[in-house]
């Protein structure tokens, strides 16, 4: 990959330098990174839920970090895991004791591919079809966050299935469909308060049949796979020009500030007016941040040849794809995906609904894992997100039946650590390790079973779900528990 100077770093350092040297607030505040930050102001703030220290012990702890601790324990304090081990837990003063007797503890499950909130339930609500901005094939400037309806009952059903983090993506109508958002399935009045605190920005891109079907059907570009690539390459070329303009601006601004600060009067007098920043463009801004590695690309792609085209695009413009989504033919290029360190978010066995989904095999995740790649089981469904553990179990079973050696820890990683990696939050969540956020699920039996139920779910140490609760979070669901 060719080296790319970090745009944000470049611009911010110009600002810092100017501020340092001139001692005045530089106009460098109007650099790209700062402009981006303006879109992230929070109006509704999520209050941290006060929770006592907790000690979970006496059952099986599956860490998704290589260990099955039996009996195992973990200690949680101030939202973080402070101890993990086997045998008797340490004494923690004032801690609430949670018995895992006969139960299983795992990290909270993570789904890299959901449209909850942007295509919410009820699915037939025409007023809430907010997931695809199908007015142009390239819309990097839209944010899924702005479409998420927090009252979607699907969020609380997801938590009941053990989900603690999910990526909400725009649909796949567009070549670049817009920003995704990494969220917590928590009750909130607006989507901003559901954001996973500190998660990187993500973007949805798509290849193959869908953009062709949507735009080709309207006699617009793209109407072919080659049209798809032209659309994406053109967009990134434009983004390179956009980056160049901001670089020029930053350089001119720095020169101007240096001139103003010059001890020579003539230089100060000739400094001229302050250089004006380029016109801000939201679409270009997202693409520029992809080029800069700050926005993690999540690419909808089914066929191996299409995935290879997208890897070529990424190489041409010097960015890294973080995860291919659906990737039903990932197994055909498992060696390349492993070598390129690109993960694949796959279903266990969906296939046949269109030609690019014709060559699916249920061993897809297992083969990619065996080849040394990063496999993820995703849902893309308001129904299967409620049982992602079963989805992983099916893929695990298919792999083992085909003679592929897999551990239950690897299968668990498909729905915990690996998706955390794809979303750039693997140092914060996705496994039971000291220092990580306490995102936990207590299961009544082994989670790789059709009969397993999440009994309790914790996000950052706060209990967010308990089996048997009857009052829905969603305003929309109020009243539906009452049978006439």
């Amino acid at each position, binding site marked *: 990959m060719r080296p790319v100077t970090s745009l944000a770093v470049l611009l911010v350092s110009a600002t810092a330098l100017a501020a340092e040297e001139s001692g005045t607030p530089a106009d460098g505040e109007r650099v790209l990174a700062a402009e981006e930050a303006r879109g992230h102001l929070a109006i509704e703030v999520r209050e941290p839920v006060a929770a006592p220290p907790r000690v979970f012990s006496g059952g099986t702890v599956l860490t998704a970090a290589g260990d099955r601790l039996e009996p195992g324990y973990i200690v949680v304090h101030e939202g973080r895991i402070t101890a993990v081990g086997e045998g008797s837990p340490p004494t923690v003063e004032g801690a609430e004791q949670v018995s895992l007797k006969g139960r299983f503890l795992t990290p909270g499950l993570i789904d890299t591919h959901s449209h909850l909130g942007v295509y919410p339930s*009820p*699915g037939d609500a025409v007023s809430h079809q907010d997931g695809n901005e199908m007015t142009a094939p390239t819309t990097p400037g839209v944010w899924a966050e702005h479409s998420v309806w927090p009252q979607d009952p699907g969020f609380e059903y997801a938590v009941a299935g053990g989900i603690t983090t999910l990526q909400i993506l725009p649909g796949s109508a567009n070549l670049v469909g817009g920003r995704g958002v990494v969220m917590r399935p928590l009750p909130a009045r607006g989507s901003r308060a559901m954001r996973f605190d500190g998660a990187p920005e993500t973007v949805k891109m798509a290849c193959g049949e869908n953009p062709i079907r949507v735009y080709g059907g309207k006699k617009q570009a793209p109407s072919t796979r080659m049209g798809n690539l032209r659309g994406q390459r053109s967009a990134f070329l434009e983004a390179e020009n956009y980056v160049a303009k901001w670089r020029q601006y930053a350089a001119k601004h720095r020169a101007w500030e240096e001139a103003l600060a010059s001890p020579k009067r003539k230089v100060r007098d000739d400094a001229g007016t302050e250089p004006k920043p380029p016109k801000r463009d939201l679409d270009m801004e997202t693409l520029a941040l992809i080029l800069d590695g700050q926005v993690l690309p999540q690419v909808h792609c089914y066929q191996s040849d299409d995935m290879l085209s997208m890897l070529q695009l990424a190489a041409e413009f010097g960015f890294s794809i973080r995860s291919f989504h659906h990737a039903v033919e990932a197994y055909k290029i498992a060696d390349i995906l492993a070598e390129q360190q690109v993960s694949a978010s796959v279903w266990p066995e969906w296939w046949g609904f269109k030609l690019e989904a014709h060559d699916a*095999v249920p*061993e897809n995740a297992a083969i990619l894992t065996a080849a040394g790649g990063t496999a993820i089981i995703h849902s893309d469904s308001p129904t299967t997100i409620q049982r992602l553990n079963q989805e992983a179990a099916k893929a695990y079973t298919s792999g083992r039946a*085909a003679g592929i050696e897999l551990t239950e820890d690897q299968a668990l990683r498909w729905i915990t650590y690996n998706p955390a990696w794809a979303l750039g939050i693997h140092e914060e969540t996705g496994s039971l390790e000291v220092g990580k956020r306490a995102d936990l699920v207590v299961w009544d039996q082994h989670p*790789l*079973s059709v009969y397993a139920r999440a009994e309790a779910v914790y996000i950052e140490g706060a209990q967010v779900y308990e089996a048997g609760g009857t009052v829905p979070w969603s305003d929309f669901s109020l009243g539906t528990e009452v049978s*006439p």
Partner: protein
Amino acid sequence: MIWWMLAAAHAACTVISGAVVHTPQGPLEGRSVVLDGDRIVGVGLGMADLKLQLGSDQSVTGATWKGAPCGFVQGGGHHLTPGLIAVDSAIGVNEIGMENAANDADPKTPDPVRAALRIAEAYDPRSPVIGVNRIGGLTHAVVSPGGGFVSGQIAVAKLSGGSQAEAIENASVAMRAHIGTNSWAEGLRQLRELVADVRAVAANPSGYRSGQLRTTYEGASALDLEALVPVVRGEVPLVVSANRASEIEALLDVTDELGLRLVLLGGAEAWLLANRLAEAKVPVMVQSMRRRANGFDERWGTHENAARLVAAGVDVMYQASFSTHNAHLVRHHAGNAVRSGVPHAEAVRSLSEVPAEVFGLEGHGRIEVGAMADVVLWTGDPLEVTTTAAQVWIDGRQLPMVSRQTLLRDRHMERLGLTKE
């Protein structure tokens, strides 16, 4: 594989020994089943009944049934069920959903009433969708046409390939209808009108043929009206999808009034009418994984829907989310229903016995003496996500556990150097 088979070279019979056998009376542990020709001839036999032959290492090398040597399958720790029957699928008629040239499930004609359409005539016994489902444990599929108001005649296909004639067990087991996509009341009005026309035509066919009798429902041809005669007589069931309890209630009223035999599809809120459905003997095909609010008509849906229906005595079947390409996953829907309160044995019945009864597939769906030898040996609990089908028999034939997907898998695993010696 932890089980093995010693296929006696020319044995017509097969002994499957030691499995948990799921019979209509419940599971039998550690007993044997004998298949002979295309029938099940022995159920619940002990080792002594089968004159086992032991090798030098005391392993079983053969068995005899009525003096004849049989193939022998050690099913220890495994489960044996009747072949699973998919309901409301398009197996054999929809190969690739979005490719018109590879999807014959819905003719997409403007014709609203296509009662004379027999989906069996579109059934392709060589579709790759069949093998994928067969190695997943399905031996039969109820194949439905799609689209229109009356979509056409539902068939039952046997998933063992052959010719169309060999595969189709029955070309007309039920009629499929779609009611009230825009207005439930208007849909039921149209149903009443259509039924009245069919009755009039049935009473005076020559009058209709000669043009003296006019019908009121527009869009039904003479053949379509004739094809509906067994439906209005209550001889052939009408399969209708409805989810909202109030719509199911009205549908029950109207089908009762018209004397139609109803099979309900969907039924997300059916539990609210569980007793009435049981009393009316209306079977329901549910999607057990769905919950409230998938649609406006499912807001009172619950994972406990199936459990409440079964408890009330309703015949429940499960519909897979992808009821064509992955129809075999129906067993996991049954497993999820057990997770939400359905007794395990009832859930197993729902996968074979109940659909065989509802769709008149006589001699199928049960492991009992005299029944067709359509059975599946599972590596464990058939409803579990960690279980796979180890072997499938249809008509007593042990079928290769190969599909287009296993061929793809093997080719690419070999290329990647992942194939075990």
